[in-house]
């Protein structure tokens, strides 16, 4: 039987004690927002010891660096991602992307504490996956597909837990849901909490007033602002990458 290539990567990382968390499309599968993805993205603890273990795992997967920057603490600490392509059997051509900082998210150590663990008894693997709330935060990027996924992640959590949610969970839904119908429903059902959240998310005023049209517009504007923040965050990093790429071509 052909193994799941993502599980092969995960088991190799585990074997080499690489401290990292599964993020991106594979994490979305675990939380029920997607069914299939070829992404293999990780947020990794950035220190020399862990990167050494990571390099050993990459060797086993016959993975080579396919773009700048090099796998170095200094680049990862500045927010760059490193990209690899595997050549080992069962993972041939699979790309692995690693990063150590996610824009808008807490540092790795906090993400690690808040992670979820999924045990696959048959495969003998325990998967360390980024927590749902951190995953949602990490999806506030400049990419269309991330916003679709973000919306679905929160909606799934509402559907799965709407019977007896804690106040704290309702607060999170009110602050993160991107579905006007859900926001209006939540604001109606949990008015007191919705009012408490107004300072952090003023558009909840439209949800409280059941003004769908205005709420839709405000959700769109909120998304545009977040996308712009992401573009601004990446601008200097992209510039640096361009210079690195230029230098590597000259060498």
């Amino acid at each position: 039987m052909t193994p799941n290539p993502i599980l092969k990567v995960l088991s190799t990382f585990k074997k080499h004690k690489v401290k990292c968390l599964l993020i991106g499309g594979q994490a979305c599968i675990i939380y029920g927002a997607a069914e299939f993805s070829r992404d293999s993205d990780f947020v990794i603890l950035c220190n020399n010891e862990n990167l050494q273990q990571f390099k050993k795992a990459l060797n086993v997967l016959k993975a080579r660096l396919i773009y700048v920057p090099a796998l170095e603490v200094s680049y990862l600490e500045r927010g760059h991602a490193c990209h690899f392509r595997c050549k080992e059997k069962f993972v041939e051509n699979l790309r692995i992307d690693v990063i150590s900082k996610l824009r808008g998210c807490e540092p790795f150590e906090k993400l690690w504490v808040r992670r979820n663990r999924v045990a696959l008894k048959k495969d003998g693997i325990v998967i360390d996956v980024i927590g749902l709330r951190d995953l949602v935060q990490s999806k506030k990027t400049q990419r269309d597909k991330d916003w679709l996924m973000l919306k679905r992640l929160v909606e799934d959590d509402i559907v799965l837990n709407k019977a007896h949610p804690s106040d704290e969970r309702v607060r999170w839904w009110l602050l993160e849901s991107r579905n006007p119908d859900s926001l209006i429903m939540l604001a109606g059902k949990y008015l007191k909490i919705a009012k408490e959240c107004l300072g952090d998310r003023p558009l909840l005023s439209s949800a409280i007033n059941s003004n769908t049209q205005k709420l839709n517009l405000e959700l769109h504007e909120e998304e545009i602002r977040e996308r712009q923040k992401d573009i601004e965050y990446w601008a200097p990093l992209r510039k640096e990458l361009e210079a690195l790429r230029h230098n590597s071509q000259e060498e």
Partner: protein
Amino acid sequence: MKRQKFIPKRVLGFVDEDMEWMSLTPSQRIKETTKLWQLYLALGGSLDPEPDPQSPFYFQEA
């Protein structure tokens, strides 16, 4: 991770397949996605990621 509760009712905005998928536990979802991988690879699917020009990670490989 805790086992998700089974969701018997269809919810507005979700099709039955979505509800079915959501009702699985995380480990069951991985098992199911493994089956999709097997089918995908049997049909000759590549492990290359889809090009995503919107991504700040996007680049043309040499």
